[in-house]
């Protein structure tokens, strides 16, 4: 059964661009792995190496225990959805979807039946006789998806397959993809920009930046135990607060602006052993609470003035200016201060992250070990 291993894979393009650097990654059989990362971080390059469309500069790509660096794409039995559809412009939608089956010389009746079935799943039956040029972006994307799932390949490789669909269809199709994955059990590698989508479809998420794999885990892992500053900032619906901080009071407290944040024993031990001075406190808006009142009453609170109020349905994002910098907090919509009001911000320090000068999360294993 398909199990893929990237062993120290590097990709350097002819112009010297290092798109993928020392990638070590094992994808289990039947796993649905999402790859998340900012634009240009090497997601597509990774996928294209796996598909055999891009040569591997160094390292070993292993499929089921066999090194496949030099196996041509036709022989890898992977179905791919391209970032930019890559439909055959001279063929009708039906023939586009049928192409992989035609290549495998399936009987005509079977081809017709399977294309029809896929078209129904993707709601594109009425376009089967049209050419791709006459379709909208979302319709084309569904055709591209259809061309991939009409086969029963070893693996699915999907490069932002839902990127151009409207929200409603995206939610519907990602559920469909997940169901399809559960039914067929094909190992899937799925690139997306959308964390929520990644969480909805995948078993594990790989976060990449600058050609390097940063962290691998579930969304909860990535949110609660980010390995470094990049992952902390990249993951999360509302951007995490990053505030300059330093150890104070013999390492018992973290000083942010004028406020002292008390640390737990384990936390302070970790910081004292690993902390070099310019530290950064990372705290998610979800873990910031408010109390309105005069500044400076308690030492654990940071006082600030409310600048921006962004209602988001049930909850509201408050952005306040504090001596330490801007801090956003997510509060229930029931108790929202008014703009300009002076408030006190309390951090749930057991959910805090502290990053050292090298941007590594010094508290990463904090909650595991406690």
């Amino acid at each position, binding site marked *: 059964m398909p199990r893929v291993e990237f062993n120290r894979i590097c990709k350097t393009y002819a112009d010297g661009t290092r798109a993928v650097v020392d990638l070590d990654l094992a994808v289990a059989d039947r796993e649905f792995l999402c790859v998340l990362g900012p634009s240009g971080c090497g997601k597509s390059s990774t996928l294209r190496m796996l598909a055999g469309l891009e040569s591997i500069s160094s390292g070993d790509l292993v499929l089921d225990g066999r090194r496949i660096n030099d196996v*041509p794409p*036709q022989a890898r039995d*992977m179905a*791919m959805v391209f970032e930019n*559809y*890559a*439909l*055959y412009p001279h063929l009708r939608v039906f023939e586009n979807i049928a192409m992989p089956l035609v290549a495998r010389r399936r009987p005509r009746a079977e081809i017709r039946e399977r294309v029809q079935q896929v078209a129904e799943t993707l709601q594109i039956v009425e376009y089967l006789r049209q050419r791709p040029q006459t379709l909208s972006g979302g319709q084309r994307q569904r055709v591209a998806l259809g061309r991939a799932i009409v086969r029963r390949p070893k693996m699915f490789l999907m490069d932002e397959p839902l990127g151009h669909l409207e929200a409603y269809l995206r939610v519907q199709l990602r559920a469909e993809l997940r169901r399809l994955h559960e039914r067929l059990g094909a190992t899937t590698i799925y690139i997306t920009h959308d964390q929520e989508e990644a969480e909805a479809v995948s078993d594990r998420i790989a976060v990449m930046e600058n050609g390097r794999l940063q962290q691998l885990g579930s969304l909860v892992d990535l949110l609660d135990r980010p390995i470094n500053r990049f992952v902390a900032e990249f993951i999360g619906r509302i951007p995490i607060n990053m505030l300059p901080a330093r150890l104070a009071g013999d390492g018992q407290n973290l000083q942010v602006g004028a406020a002292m944040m008390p640390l737990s024993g384990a936390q302070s031990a970790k910081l004292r052993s690993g902390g070099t001075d310019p530290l950064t406190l990372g705290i998610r808006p979800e873990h910031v609470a408010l109390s309105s009142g005069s500044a400076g009453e308690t030492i654990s609170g940071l006082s600030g003035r409310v600048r921006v109020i962004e209602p988001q349905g049930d909850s509201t994002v408050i952005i306040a200016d504090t001596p330490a910098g801007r801090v956003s907090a997510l509060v229930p919509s029931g108790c929202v201060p008014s703009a300009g009001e002076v408030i006190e911000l309390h951090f749930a320090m057991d959910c805090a992250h502290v990053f050292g000068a090298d941007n590594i999360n010094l508290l990463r294993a904090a909650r595991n070990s406690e």
Partner: protein
Amino acid sequence: MSTIVPDKKNAVGAATGARNLAIYLAACLFVGFGLFPLYMMITTSLKTDQQTFAWPPVWLFTPRFQSYYNALFVFGGRSADHYLFNSLVVTLSSSALAVFLGAMAAYGLARFRFRGNRDVAFYILSTRFAPPVGFIVPIYLMVQRSGLLDTQIALIVVYTSMNLSFVTWILRGFFLEIPIEIEEAALVDGYTRWQIFLRVALPLVRPGLAATAILSAIFSWNEFLFASILAPGDAATIPVYLAGFSASMNIDWGEYMAVGTMAVLPIMIFTLALQRHLVRGLTFGAVR
């Protein structure tokens, strides 16, 4: 206010109207200038000698097909249809060969990275820099030594090689325009390079195939110099046969023009038939 706006519009409309009319007239003049010889040739082929030489020119007359009949069935020796057939064989074979071989070469140059790729491409184009007359002696000798003088094969080979360079060059540009992802999709779908060439790449450069086929065919159909030297006799093509007319003491203008008309017709039909494939933009919209 509201009355001024339409007035202004009308003024602008009239100005562009006049401009359009001028452009239209100029275009008509140009087309007339180009078509007049054709008109003369066709009408002359349908006139009697008196009508041809009458002054003032006879514009209205009852057409007669005697000249065509004479050219095809009465003249001594091989008649016009024999040479038309030669031309057809030579033109179709050499164009088909040039386009097919050229497409393969162009695809290789466009899709495979190898050392000196661009140099090879430029070399192929550079073979057209020197005027063909320069090669006539060596080519004559090669054809003679291979015993191919006065055969259709000699002309087919020579014309194919002459057309191959520009066919390759033009088609290389067309192949380069195909988004690479389309072919990558075919690779992943399980097709071999050769299947992709035939099923994906060739259909997508159809306008290029049509254009190069038309240009090769026109060249082969009209070529005179090599034809007259390599195949002056039985395998002669229609230009060589036509040239024979002007060499005789008194020219049978009606028959001359009848053969001329028959010589123009096939290549015109061929061009018009392929012309509709020249539409561009087939690959548009395939890729985001």
